[in-house]
C-alpha cells in the first residue's frame, strides 16, 4: 500500500508532525488476548457487589424493574447498535422509524404534542428544558419547586451558570421567571400539586416544566392534561439496566408552539417519488450542524439505542402492561409502608402526602439499616446526604420485582 501511495515508509506520511512532538510509544501495557482481557475485566466486575433485584429497595432516580428479554434481543442487533446517526435516510430507515416510534410514545405518555429523539439523561433534560424556556421567554431565572432530584438541580445550575441564568428554589414565580420546574412524583416519591404549580407558572407568564417518571404516567395525570408546557424525564425504567448510572435516556416533549425550540434531533415522515413513506431527520435548522452558534442546543450524538430499548419495552408492555407494572409497584409500596410504619421508632416522614411506589420514612435508630447489606439487601436511600432538613429520612422503593417474600425478608431483617 505504501508503494501505491508513492512513499517509502509510514513516517513519510507523518512529516507534517513536528519532530519534537513525535513520541516513541504509549505508556500503557501491551495488548492482551481476548481471553486475558475478559479475565481481567471479569475480576474487576467481581469486586463489585450485585444485590438481587428482588432485595433492592433503593431508588432515587434509578430503579430495578423487570426487563423483558426482548429488549436486549433487539438492542443487541448489530444493525441497530453499530449504525451511525441516520444521516442517509435511505440506508437508515430502521433507526429512523424506531426513533419516530419513540417520539410518538413519549408524546402519548406525556400527552404533549411532540417529543424529540432523546437526550442524555433526566438531568440534562431538565437543563435543556430550562434553556428552552429562557430563550422562549427571554427571561433569566428559573424557579425550582420542591424536591427536584438534587443531581438534576446541580446539572441545571452548571448549565445555568455558563449561560448566566439564575436558579432559585421556591414556589413563587416572578416577572423574571422563565419557568417553574417541578418533579412528579418528586425525589422523595411524594406527589405534588402539579395543577397549581402549572397555573401559578402561567399566571406569572412563565412556562411550566414537569419532570416525570414515565411509568407513573400509566396512573397519574400526564403533563399535557394539567397544562404543562414541557415534559422531561429519565427513561431508565423503560427497559434499561441500572449500569451504575448510565447510559440511560432523557426525554423531552412540548406543546406545538415550542417545537422549534426543542433541542436535539427530530424525525419526521416523508415520501419518496413512488409515494412510499419513509422517515427523515426533520427541522434540522434548529441544530448545531446547520445553525452552529445559533442552534437551540449543542447536542449531536444523543441516546438513540437507549430510546430504542424504551420503545421495545413499551411495546412489550402495551398500555395494560404498563398500568399493571405501575399498579403492582404502587400496591407493594403501600403494603410495605404500612408494615414499616408499624415498626417501633419508624414513621412516614410525610404522613399526609401521597405517593406511588417510593416513599420517605423517618427512622429513629438508623443503625439497623447498616445490617441489611449483610443479609443481601440493598436498603433504602439516605436522603439526608442532600437535604439537611431530612435527618433520619430514608426513601424506600418497591417495584414489580420486589415480591411479597422479599418484603417479608426486609421487614424481618429490620426487626431482628
Amino acid at each position: 500500500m505504501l508503494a501505491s501511495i508513492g512513499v517509502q515508509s509510514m513516517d513519510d506520511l507523518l512529516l507534517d508532525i513536528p519532530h519534537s512532538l513525535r513520541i516513541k510509544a504509549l505508556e500503557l501495557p501491551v495488548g492482551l488476548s481476548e481471553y486475558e482481557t475478559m479475565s481481567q475485566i471479569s475480576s474487576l466486575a467481581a469486586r463489585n457487589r450485585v444485590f438481587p433485584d428482588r432485595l433492592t429497595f433503593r431508588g432515587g432516580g434509578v430503579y430495578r424493574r423487570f426487563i423483558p428479554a426482548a429488549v436486549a434481543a433487539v438492542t443487541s442487533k448489530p444493525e441497530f447498535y453499530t449504525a451511525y446517526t441516520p444521516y442517509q435516510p435511505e440506508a437508515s430507515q430502521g433507526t429512523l422509524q424506531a426513533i419516530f416510534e419513540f417520539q410518538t410514545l413519549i408524546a402519548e405518555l406525556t400527552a404533549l404534542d411532540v417529543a424529540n429523539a432523546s437526550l442524555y439523561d433526566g438531568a440534562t433534560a431538565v437543563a435543556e428544558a430550562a434553556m428552552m424556556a429562557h430563550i422562549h421567554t427571554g427571561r433569566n431565572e428559573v424557579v425550582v419547586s420542591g424536591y427536584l432530584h438534587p443531581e438534576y438541580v446541580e446539572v441545571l445550575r452548571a448549565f445555568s451558570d455558563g449561560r448566566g441564568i439564575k436558579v432559585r428554589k421556591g414556589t413563587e414565580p416572578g416577572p423574571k421567571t422563565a419557568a417553574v420546574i417541578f418533579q412528579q412524583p418528586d425525589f422523595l416519591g411524594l406527589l405534588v400539586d402539579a395543577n397549581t404549580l402549572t397555573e401559578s407558572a402561567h399566571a406569572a407568564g412563565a412556562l411550566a416544566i414537569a419532570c416525570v417518571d414515565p411509568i407513573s404516567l400509566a396512573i397519574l395525570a400526564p403533563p399535557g392534561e394539567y397544562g404543562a408546557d414541557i415534559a422531561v424525564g429519565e427513561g431508565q425504567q423503560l427497559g434499561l439496566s441500572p449500569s451504575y448510572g448510565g447510559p440511560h435516556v432523557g426525554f423531552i416533549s412540548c406543546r406545538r408552539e415550542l417545537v422549534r425550540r426543542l433541542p436535539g434531533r427530530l424525525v419526521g415522515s416523508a415520501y419518496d417519488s413512488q409515494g412510499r413513506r419513509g422517515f427523515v431527520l426533520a427541522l434540522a435548522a434548529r441544530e448545531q450542524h446547520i445553525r452552529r452558534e445559533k442552534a437551540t442546543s449543542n447536542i449531536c450524538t444523543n441516546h438513540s439505542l437507549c430510546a430504542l430499548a424504551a420503545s421495545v419495552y413499551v411495546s412489550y408492555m402495551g398500555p395494560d402492561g404498563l398500568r399493571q407494572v405501575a399498579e403492582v409497584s404502587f400496591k407493594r409500596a403501600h403494603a410495605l409502608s404500612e408494615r414499616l410504619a408499624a415498626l417501633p421508632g419508624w414513621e412516614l416522614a410525610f404522613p399526609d402526602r401521597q405517593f406511588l411506589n417510593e416513599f420517605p420514612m423517618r427512622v429513629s435508630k438508623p443503625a439497623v439499616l447498616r445490617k441489611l447489606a449483610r443479609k443481601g439487601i440493598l436498603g433504602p436511600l439516605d436522603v439526608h446526604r442532600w437535604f439537611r432538613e431530612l435527618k433520619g429520612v430514608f426513601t424506600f422503593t418497591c417495584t414489580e420485582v420486589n415480591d411479597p417474600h422479599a418484603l417479608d425478608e426486609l421487614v424481618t431483617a429490620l426487626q431482628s
Partner: protein
Amino acid sequence: MTELLSFEKSRPGASAARLPDADVTAPEPSQVLSPGLLRTKAPALPRLSEPEIMRHYGRLASMNYSISKQFYPLGSCTMKYNPVVNEIAAGLPGFASLHPYQEEDSVQGALELMWRLEGALCAVVGVERVTLQPAAGAHGEWTALRMIQAYHHSRGDARTEVLVPDSAHGTNPASAALNGFHVVEVKSGPDGRISLADLESKLSPRVAALMLTNPNTLGLFERDILDIAEMVHATGAMLYYDGANLNAFMGICRPGDMGFDAVHMNLHKTFTTPHGGGGPGAGPVGVKADLIPFLPTPTVERTNGHLTLDFKRPKSIGRVRSFYGNFGMLVRAYAYIVAMGGDGLMQASRDAVLSANYLRKQVEDDLDMPHEGPCMHEFVASAQNLAQHGVRALDVAKALLERDFYAPTVYFPLVVPEAIMVEPTETENKATLDAFAAAIKEIVAQAKTNPQALHDAPRNLPVGRLDEVAAARRINAYLQGQSEDPVLRWKPAEK
C-alpha cells in the same frame, strides 16, 4: 419494502406482557389518590404480541446499513469495528446491575475501572486528569469550556469570546454559545490549515479559548500548532482540543504535548464503543493542571488501593450529568484499551493513516482534491468536477448507497464546496478500499454518460430519496396551526 409503525400494527387484545400480580393487601391507586392526580385518558400505546414485536424490530433492523455489514466511510465519524467482547464486558452483571447509590465499598471494581480508564486516557492524550462524566462529544466540549470559563472567572478575568475555525464541527460554536460565549470564526488558509494571520487579528484579552482539532476536519495536521499554542497562551487564552480526531495519532503524538489545555475524547469514535444509531456515546474531558480544580464532581480518587468518589471540590463547576457518566460505555472503552494495549493503539492509528492515504490516492484522479496530501486519518475531496454534468456530492453519496456502501460525510466541512469527506479507519482491508475506489470510478464515469441514473439513486433500498422539502412544508403547516398532522409523530385516528 416499508414497514407499518408498531402503532399501526396494534391489535385490540394483543399483549406480550404477562406480569406477576401484586399479591399483597393494598388499595388500588384510585382508592387512595385524589382524583385530580389521576390520568383520564389512556395513552395510545401499541398492543402487540412478543412475536409481532420481535418481527417488527427484526425487519426494521434489516432496513439499516451498519458497520457490521457495510463500509462506512463517514468522515469525522470514525466508524470502526466495535469488538463483540466490549458488549460482553459491559453486560457482566457485576457492572450492568450496579445501583449508582450503592456504598463505595461495594463498587470498588467499578471505581477501579474508571480510575484505570482515566489513567489510560491521560496517557493517550497527554493530560493530568480526565473527567468521565460527559455523555458525548458536544457535552464534553461544553464541559471543558465551562471549566475554562470558571478558570478565567476565578482569576477575575471575564473573557467573553471563543475562537473557532471555519472548518470546525458545528458542536464547537454551539457549545461555546451554550456557555454564553460570543463565537468568533477564524479563517483557514489555502493549504487547509488555520490562517495564522487571521488568528493573530482575532486574538485579544477578550478571548477565553481557541477550539481546535488536529488533524483538523480536513484531515490535515496543523503544522504550526506549536506557534499557535504560543500565540494563544500569550494572550492568556486557553487552547481547547476537539478530540474527535484522536484516531489519527495514538502513540504518534499527543495534544497535551502540543500545548492543549483541555481535550475531549469521543469514546464512541476512537475507542470503539458503538454508535447505536446516534448514541449513547461518552465524551470524557482531559485537562492540564490549571483546570483540575474545576473538574466536575465527583472525581474518582485512589489511596492505598482504596477508591473513593470525591464530592468536596469547592472550585468545581458542579455536575454535568447525573451519576458518573455513561458507565456502560466506559467499560467498553476500557475493554478495548486493555485488549489493544499501547502497541495496538499505535498500530491502529498508523493503519488508519495508511488506509486514508491509500484510498485518497486511488480516487485522486476521479474527484477534486482541494488540498495537498499526505492526509492523516481522513481526507476531504470535492465533487465540484462533476458539477458540469449536473451531478452533486449528494448524488455521489446516494449512488454509493445503491452500491452497498454507506456514504461519506458530504457538505462538511463547510469550507470545501461539494465536500466529500472520507475516513476509512483501520477496520477496512485493502479489498474493501479497492472496491470503494472502483465504485467511485464507476460513479464518476456514470456522471458523464448517464447522470440521471445518479439522480435516481438509490433504487434498491427500502425507500428512494425522500422529499425533505415537502416534509418541512408539512411540519411548518402543523406548527403554524394550518394542519393537524404533526408529521413528527404518529397520531391515533380518532380523537
